């Protein structure tokens, strides 16, 4: 970080909590444009409009910002994929679509962001659209998130009234319209291509990729789809610069991140920390496990990220750290469960969710989630057999990597990780059944018959 030293930035270890996205949340009515402007709001936009759009793309690339919706794709690179120029795909209109369809179980960061500080999202949208040369932006908000919808819609109206949106924004010659769009209850619409289909007035089912949204997105035009937290990070990066952004977090996962702690902790809530913090550090901030009952399992980033256990308390929660330890960072939705919770039960509940939300487009996910749930329910009703565990793993093996989109992959995560760390609990459900229920000889052959490799 030699740059940081030259520019006089503090490169010592940051504080345990680093409010950037959450820095206005304590200010009353920060969702109102007057308050937002008093708190330096729209200063980043004014500065950004003095630069060339490509400079902003370079800035975000240099910052190392990675998508906050779960996948962690480098944001600047995504913007750079948008074809520019007077011919071919570059000549088409470009679009920014903000994915505010927050619904991954455990995830609850975008909804408070949109309620507390919607203008940071709007300002980020304007800067992003200027960078990618888009004149139309849609913010797709989950339908059940009614109050965030109001706050964002109100922010858009206020921004129009102040000349931050509409024609010739702040005299720059740049035009932008933003529409705030409500979804209608479908988890799958958080998948970016399903979201685009939904925004086009269709069933929310994912599209085959390629072509990717960067060349063929909304209305088959070049489109950037970014998460709320990603876009809301942009104004701070413009104001602070890429070196400042990199004073927080890790080399490959820089910046601050909102970690959402829920479940059996003393003080659940939103904690914005530098990327790479640990559950141990976060638990300390949150007052430890509720009533002192020990931790049993947790998700690092929503139910689609493989479970962790107490042995993962010190795993650095950034994209690399979570992946190295066998899971994914996802949405940094830390759902924390204590020893009183049965793993097979939790896995069954999550599987119910995936079965309900599977869009039905592809067979592995539609049929797989259905049968996974059947088996898990049977086991929970004490009518399972040890062979069911192998069948579960086999079905997961046939869904993972074979489904049309990540929903199918995500559905297997709680099951395979649950069995990996807590196989005995699944076995105990089987031995608890009335005697005579297990025909071990027959079931020993089952893995072979079904092709299970586990």
């Amino acid at each position: 970080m030699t740059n940081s030293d030259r520019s006089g930035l503090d490169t010592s270890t940051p504080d345990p909590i680093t409010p950037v996205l959450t820095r206005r949340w304590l200010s009353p009515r920060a969702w109102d444009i007057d308050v937002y402007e008093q708190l330096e709001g729209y200063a980043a936009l004014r500065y950004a409009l003095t630069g060339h759009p490509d400079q902003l793309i370079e800035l975000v690339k240099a910052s190392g910002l990675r998508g906050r919706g779960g996948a962690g794709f480098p944001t600047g690179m995504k913007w750079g994929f948008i074809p520019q120029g007077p011919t071919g795909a570059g000549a088409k209109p470009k679009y920014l679509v903000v994915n505010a369809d927050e619904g991954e179980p455990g995830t609850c960061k975008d909804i408070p962001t949109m309620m507390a500080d919607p203008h940071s999202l709007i300002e980020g949208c304007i800067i992003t659209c200027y960078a990618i040369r888009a004149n139309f932006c849609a913010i797709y908000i989950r339908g059940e998130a009614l109050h965030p919808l109001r706050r964002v819609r109100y922010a858009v109206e206020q921004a129009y009234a102040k000349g931050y949106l509409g024609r010739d924004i702040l005299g720059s010659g740049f035009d932008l319209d933003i529409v705030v769009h409500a979804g209608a209850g479908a988890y799958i619409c958080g998948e970016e291509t399903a979201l685009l289909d939904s925004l086009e007035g269709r069933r929310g089912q994912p599209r085959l990729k390629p072509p990717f949204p960067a060349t063929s997105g909304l209305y088959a035009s070049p489109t950037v789809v970014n998460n709320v937290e990603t876009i809301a990070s942009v104004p701070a990066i413009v104001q602070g610069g890429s070196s400042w952004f990199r004073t927080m977090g890790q080399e490959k996962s820089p910046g601050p991140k909102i970690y959402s702690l829920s479940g059996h902790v003393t003080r659940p809530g939103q904690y914005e920390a530098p990327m790479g913090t640990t559950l141990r550090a976060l638990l300390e901030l949150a007052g430890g496990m509720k009533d002192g009952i020990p931790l049993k399992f947790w998700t690092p980033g929503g139910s689609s990220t493989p479970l962790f256990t107490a042995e993962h308390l010190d795993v650095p929660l950034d994209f690399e750290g979570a992946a190295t330890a066998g899971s994914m960072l996802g949405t940094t939705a830390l759902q924390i469960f204590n020893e009183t919770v049965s793993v097979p039960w939790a896995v069954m509940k999550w599987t119910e969710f995936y079965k309900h939300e599977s869009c039905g487009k592809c067979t592995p996910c539609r049929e797989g989630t259905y049968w996974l749930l059947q088996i898990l329910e049977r086991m929970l009703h004490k009518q399972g057999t040890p062979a069911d565990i192998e069948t579960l793993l086999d079905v997961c093996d046939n869904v993972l990597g074979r489904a049309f989109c990540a929903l199918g992959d995500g559905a297997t995560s709680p099951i395979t990780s649950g069995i990996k760390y807590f196989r005995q609990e699944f076995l105990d459900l089987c031995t608890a059944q009335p005697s005579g229920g297990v025909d071990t000889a027959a079931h020993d052959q089952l893995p072979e018959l079904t092709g299970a490799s586990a």
Partner: protein
Amino acid sequence: MTAPEGQPESVGNGNDQFPDEVEWEPAVPEQSPLTPVFDEATRQRTVEIIARYPQSRSALLPLLHLVQSVEGYVSQDGIRYCAEVLELTTAEVSAVATFYTMYKRTPCGEHLVSVCTNTLCAALGGDEIYRTLSRRLGVGHEETAGEPGTPGSITLEHAECLAACDLAPVLQVNYEYFDNQTVESAQALVEALQRGERPLPTRGAALTDLKTVEMELAGIFPDLAGAVAGNSAAPETLRGAQLAAERHWVAPAMPDMPPALPDLPEKR
């Protein structure tokens, strides 16, 4: 016979154009697509909604919310209305309406009570809350206690994760949040709704009814300035920020002036 659903009604002129040899009697007489249920105000809102989008079909989700705001559910009339104004077939509209859980296909109560029963809420009491309300109201998932549409009638549903996990267990009434619920608080809430009361949500605007919020979901806000002021700052939401303020923790200071933007990349 699915012909009526599949016909592009925008093409029709009101006279059925079937070949003579096909004898076809609709089981239910088709009403005019522009059914009088949807009044002039609704039509004006429709125009306003469609005008927001580069392509008209993008208005379909908001329009389905709009017809739901008029009738309390998405009826066949509602399907026909959307098809007509967007020049789609009723089959295309039905395909969309049946995909999304927020579009209800039977008349709903004055209020919609959605209890999160996803894993985390369930572990903290959500399942028990749902079971208790179900017993108390005598209805199951997506069923209505009381005559739909009448004051105090309640449609109950169990919902998937409502993205308020730090405030679990949660439920929503007409999509306004009631956080940190217990069996007792949820039961008291539902009883108050049945008596015609409208308790304040933990986060959200003052309660109205399902039809009114469906209008907002369509993007039509009769009182946005009023509704937007509803509370949002739960203690849980602010915990990290609060703790940082108490302990004087801050993000590293930004430079006084925004640093120069990077140079333009070399043109390839």
